[in-house]
């Protein structure tokens, strides 16, 4: 590179606007403090010191209005589904959803003949990343968040619609 950068002081970098916006988004994925079943325990563990989700800039928020990411951790019943949809609608854009565990993906063990359980959270809200497992280990959830970061980095913000 050389010639141009040699003439600038330290700590000045060049990038594209898209990359910069995407980088700042992916580095501050604040997720909503929201869990409905045993996946929530793994979610807590992922956020705690051993797996330390803060490394990815992901900290939990106790309100949908400050959240960028909804991790649907657990079984969603029809009764809960209305609330999930409302929480999703309350989040500001851009917003992302990770379906964590079999229940949120497909209904899991309740898929057959359950009168109460919603068979996959993608029936009510759009899902970006599906994390399989029952429940998934923290490593799997972190993998899911990294996949979401990859997905965010491919976004084009400045394309005319």
């Amino acid at each position, binding site marked *: 590179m050389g010639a141009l950068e040699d003439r600038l002081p330290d700590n000045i970098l060049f990038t594209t606007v898209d990359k910069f916006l995407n980088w700042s988004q992916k580095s501050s994925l604040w997720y909503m403090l929201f869990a409905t079943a045993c996946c929530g325990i793994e979610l807590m563990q992922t956020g705690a010191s051993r797996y330390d989700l803060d490394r990815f800039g992901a900290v939990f928020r106790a309100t949908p209005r400050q959240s960028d990411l909804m991790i649907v951790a657990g079984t969603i019943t029809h009764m809960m589904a*209305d609330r999930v949809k409302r929480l999703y609608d309350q989040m500001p854009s851009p917003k992302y959803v990770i379906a964590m565990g079999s229940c949120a993906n497909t209904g899991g063990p309740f898929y057959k003949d359950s*009168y109460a359980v919603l068979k996959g959270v993608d029936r009510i809200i759009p899902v970006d990343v599906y994390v399989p497992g029952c429940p998934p280990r923290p490593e799997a959830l972190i993998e899911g968040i990294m996949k979401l970061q990859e997905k965010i980095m491919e976004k084009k913000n400045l394309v005319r619609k």
Partner: protein
Amino acid sequence: MEAKKIYEILSGRFGSAIQQFQENTLPPSIVVGHQAIVEVCDFLKKAEELEFLSLICLSAVDMQEKGKMAVVYHLGSMRQRHTIVLKVELDRGSPHVRTVGTVWPVAAWYEREAYDLLGVVFDGHPDLRRILMPEDWEGYPLRKDYVYPKRYHTWDV
């Protein structure tokens, strides 16, 4: 106290309201006429040598082939260290039974569940609403002739 003994005490006091003693079910159970259930429960709770202070479980069973709906009461006594099961058989077309919430307040929640899932109506219940399913849900999901709905609100069930 043995279940047989409890049955004998109850039949001595309530006569024909105590319909049957089912010895071979596990645990042994007593079938009670539905008009007398509150009085029987009240007696079981207050009688000195019985002392059934706790209602362990209240559930309902759909006996479609017999055209009946049964409500099952599991009672227990910590002091006397014995348990007993009462059954009430109701007409499946319109299952009505009096609430035992006046005897054991905890019955209110069990009865809401039985109402929610099987449609048993508990007369005299102070707050008979659905407890597990959404309030605008149609039908009673644990009935044997229940047909699953295709849609609920905006999504496929």
